[in-house]
């Protein structure tokens, strides 16, 4: 795994100050290796979304260096961001459509991915006919259909109820074990961070304060979340989070 293999995200000494003078980030060093799942936890306003937007190329750093070697980067927003006039299937097809992927090919792929997120039966439904959890599944399918080597998630499960949230964590964890992509995943849930990722980065105001490695290989059984070893790791992250903020 050289730093140049596709799917690497690297931020070195990155700072971001917005036009209005708000300094959101200072001296961020962060690497996501190919196929690695890294989560960022931190209180709201600490700069998590800003890091993702930098990684996606939506904004530029004020200082420091940012390297993304991914061929395809996908973004999953906090809100499902589905186009309400399109069916679930056509929402998943959107990115292929924008990139002029032939119709038959993009449809086949979209159906496969919808099946993978458990929505084979909902392909013809419009977003308004779907529950919040189902809409987020469509949103994840839309991100995965592009076969990204790097996926960026901005608190995608934050607005969902606990049960839906747990089932989506399990789903993502499965998808992650099967597909080959690196991911940077933002959450403010410590348990979610520990369950999903290989490494948890703990953020304080505008900086990364600590890092915790999570030992278990993927796929991780859902019961792992109720084990004592899991609680120990989560406890450490929580303590670091409190220290940082």
């Amino acid at each position: 795994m050289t730093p140049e293999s596709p799917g690497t995200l690297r931020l070195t000494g990155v700072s971001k100050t917005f036009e209005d003078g708000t300094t959101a980030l200072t001296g961020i060093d962060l690497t996501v290796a190919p196929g690695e799942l890294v989560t960022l936890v931190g209180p709201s306003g600490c700069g998590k979304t800003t890091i993702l937007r930098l990684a996606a190329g939506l904004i530029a750093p004020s200082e420091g260096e940012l390297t993304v070697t991914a061929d395809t980067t996908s973004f999953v927003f906090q809100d499902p961001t589905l186009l309400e006039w399109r069916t679930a299937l056509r929402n998943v097809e959107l990115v292929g459509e924008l990139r002029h992927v032939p119709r038959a090919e993009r449809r086949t792929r979209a159906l496969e991915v919808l099946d993978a997120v458990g929505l084979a039966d909902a392909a013809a439904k419009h977003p308004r006919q779907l529950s919040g959890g189902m809409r987020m599944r469509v949103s994840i399918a839309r991100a995965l259909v592009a076969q990204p080597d790097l996926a960026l998630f901005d608190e995608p499960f934050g607005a969902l109820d606990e049960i839906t949230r747990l089932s989506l964590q399990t789903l993502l964890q499965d998808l992650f074990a099967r597909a080959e992509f690196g991911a940077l995943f933002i959450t403010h849930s410590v348990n979610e961070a520990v369950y999903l990722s290989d490494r948890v980065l703990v953020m304080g105001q505008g900086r990364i304060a600590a890092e915790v490695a999570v030992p278990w290989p993927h796929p991780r059984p859902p019961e792992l979340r109720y084990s004592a070893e899991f609680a120990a790791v989560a406890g450490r992250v929580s303590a670091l989070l409190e220290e940082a903020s």
Partner: protein
Amino acid sequence: MTGPTASRSLPGWLTQATSVVAALLGIGLVWTFVSLVVLTPERRFLLPPPTQVLGTLGNPTIMTPMLAALGRTTLVALVGLAIAVVVGLVWAVLMAQSRWVERILYPYAVILQTIPILALTPLIGIWFGYGIPARVVVAVIIAIFPLISNTFFGLTAAPSPASHDLFTLARASRWQRLVKLQAPAAVPSIFTGLRTAAGLSVIGAIVGDFFFQQGEVGIGGLLRVYTLRLNMEALLTAVGLTALFGVLVFSVFAALDRFVVGRWYGR
């Protein structure tokens, strides 16, 4: 998203129809009272009782030209509306392209909206003549603003910032963004604008009839003729027909709005 809408009691159109009938009955009662009780017999010509006015509906020498005139006005309104839709949408799409174009084009829209049509009629007459084309121009001017403003608002404000990010990340072209994001997101507000503009195009056509009387007469022209002759029965019938017509046009476009937007958005 809202759940199933209230369908407990009467269907919507029936409730609406009931209230329209109730309103008409109310008007009829007050009208009869004023005509027969308030006005003395020698002043009753100012407001003849409803029965007498409704009588003109069976009089072909009045009704034939009146319906023909209403037909012409309808045509002027529809042509005016069609032009307003095309020009208004293009205008809004151009304005949505950049702040720069917006700053240039928006003031003209506001001027069109705020300038009293009376002040423009001499110019319209000189440029377009005093017949049907001038009437169409008046209809366009009066109807166009809600189309421009609602379309522009829909194109710029309806898509969420996140959905714009989605398109940016997919490296969508400006055209793709317009056609696949902004335009579909703007559909509900475009239809709101269309509904308002449809009603206004009727007003515009009647105002146009009133000012530009060359060529075949429209209902606005007849209103003027009846007024000059103090033909109150015909005048009141024409006013009533015009009002009904306005309501009809508005309802047709409201139904179209519900049908199209409802199908797309479930609203």
